[in-house]
């Protein structure tokens, strides 16, 4: 019982982390508080659904098309919609407020387009739902795949950000865009790149989540909310933090559902969130700001 609760919690947490990691890039580096984030996750879910049901392309292969596509789409969103806001913002606070308003509008545009194309119905398809035995716990294969992606993306990006030149540049922009300019970092490019990268990670999340969750055009906000909690809890801009925070929430929910009451799973999420904020306001892996 305990091993099952922990393993299903880890897969659940992997899903949370997966959905949150794109937002932590967009918010952490580009300083865009993207309220349309969840809608972009859902867009990828719908594309995966169409690939699977209309063309018989399995979602994992579909990623080869969906990742570059969403990278380009998010690049365009940043260049067309957000660059003017970045240019006129006098400071970070102003950019955050403006980007919240702009992406709030974007949320309704994306939702409206999805609504016209797909209607308000629930969507769901069957892929890799076979049972896999992991140390005595039976888990659906698609959830393990999602967990695998979460770990690879989380650790991979962590290493890229801390060990490579471009990663260092991205972190410099995240910490202080004005000073980053002084050491010849193209801040606009770096922000745009991070935003597009975050969008691509969101799309990976959307595709993988669509394999086991029922989704509809109006569900984006659920993902935005969950992602926001994970991002803030893990420390804004820290992918490893998002991974760890996601896993903590997943395991906590699963343990509470098994040993206390399934009705308290949402409550425990917020209790942990509050505790983290009280003890470490900048998040588990966040750097305290002066």
């Amino acid at each position, binding site marked *: 019982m305990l091993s099952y609760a922990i393993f299903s919690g880890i897969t659940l947490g992997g899903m949370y982390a997966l959905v949150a990691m794109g937002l932590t890039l967009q918010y952490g580096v580009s300083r865009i508080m993207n309220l349309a984030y969840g809608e972009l996750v859902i867009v990828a879910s719908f594309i995966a659904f169409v690939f699977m049901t209309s063309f018989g392309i399995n979602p994992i292969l579909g990623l080869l098309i969906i990742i570059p596509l969403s990278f380009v789409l998010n690049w365009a969103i940043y260049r067309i919609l957000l660059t003017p806001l970045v240019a006129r913002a006098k400071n970070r606070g102003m950019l955050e407020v403006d980007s919240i308003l702009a992406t709030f509008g974007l949320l309704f545009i994306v939702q409206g387009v999805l609504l016209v194309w797909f209607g308000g119905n629930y969507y769901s398809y069957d892929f890799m739902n076979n049972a896999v035995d992991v140390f005595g716990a*039976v888990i659906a294969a698609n959830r393990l795949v999602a967990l695998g992606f979460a770990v690879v993306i989380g650790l991979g990006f962590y290493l890229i950000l801390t060990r490579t030149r471009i990663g260092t540049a991205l972190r410099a922009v995240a910490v202080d865009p004005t000073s980053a300019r002084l050491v010849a970092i193209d801040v606009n490019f770096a922000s745009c790149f991070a935003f597009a990268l975050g969008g691509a990670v969101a799309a990976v999340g959307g595709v993988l989540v669509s394999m086991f969750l029922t989704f509809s055009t109006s569900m984006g906000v659920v993902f935005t909310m969950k992602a926001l909690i994970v991002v803030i809890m893990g420390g804004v801009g820290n992918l490893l933090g998002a991974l760890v925070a996601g896993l903590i929430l997943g395991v906590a929910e699963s343990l509470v559902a098994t040993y206390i009451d399934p*009705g308290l799973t949402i409550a425990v999420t917020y209790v942990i969130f509050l505790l983290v904020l009280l003890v470490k306001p900048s998040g588990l892996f966040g750097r305290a700001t002066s």
Partner: protein
Amino acid sequence: MEISAKLRFATIAAATTALMSSATLFGANAQETYRIGYAVSKTGPGAPGAATSTIPNYEMWVKEVNDAGGLKVGDKQLPIEVVEYDDRSSSEEAVRAVERLINQDKVDFILSPWGTGINLAVAPILDRAGYAHLAGTAVTDKAPQLAKRWKNSYWLLGTGEQYAVEMAEFLKGLKDAGKINDKVAMIAVADGFGIELSKAGRAALEDRDFDLVYDKTYPLGSQDLATIVNDIKSLGADTFVAFSYPPGTLGLTEQSRVLGFNPKVFYAGVGTAFPLYKDRFGADAEGVVSLGGASENDPKIADYIKRHIAFAGREPDRWASIVNWASLQSLHQAIERAGSTDREAVNAELAKGGFDTILGTYKPGDQNFWQVGQWQDGKFVGVAPTSMEGAHELVFPKPAWKAAN
């Protein structure tokens, strides 16, 4: 600043005057359409439910009536003009929209919104303005009292208790025949529907000497119910009952399949009777029990399903859609019988009943539809009340899941 504010005021004033004069102009013309309005959840959490059970039926009804030349009132036949609002799944928004339909759009009739909460919210307003309220997607234990308080309101899906009692009675039959043990595991979504049905279900099952070995709720919106299923699996219950909403219904079916939890009776909540369920689980839907059901051997029902597929590109659900359609047929016939769009006359006709619908001879509020249904050979058929004509034998025990193994 000063100037721009004045300018804005002037523009608004001019626009309002223009609008008002055009409205009077319009009003002076002879009536060319009958106006029917509704506010329904096109976005927000209620949107998938509305898109399944409500919107396609309304649109199909309007199209069918207009294709046939329009609504016949007395000796005049005019097309229907629709005034539609999105209530964004919020009661406040729905109340505003319905007030607008009544006061500004001055529609002739109003069709009901989607969902229990929103129907409850708009009921007093419709009542005050004298509009009939055929609530096609509300399940509430207060249904009989509400129908008395607002005399032109009809709570078509009845009370949560009736579904729970009918289910418990049916299970008792199986227990008495020695087919299932007395252990039942029950879960419910922590929202209006789940709470009412689990409350009624708990009482009804305990009255019939069932032992509830698991009885918990889970939060609204949760689809990850694997830990619950895994807990229940080891409790030895022959019967599993979930008063769930569609995402949860699909989630727990999937997770039961993965975990190989296959009780003799598998009862899942709203969403089971949706065509989505069959599309998603294929042969594994076989034997799953839920609320609702359709007599597809009945030519009227079969024809309705065929028309719905042709119009909306998908099947209707086998519960609320059917009742909704019967209510539209009733309203249509009440208007024709009254021979006028005078709401009082139409309300009087509605109260008389005796309409010819896909549910047979029908009076809004009749509970003459299936309370318990089951997927059998790709059709969601009615199994209880067993006294109803065309009741199917239960497929028992539920066949093993196929796909996951």
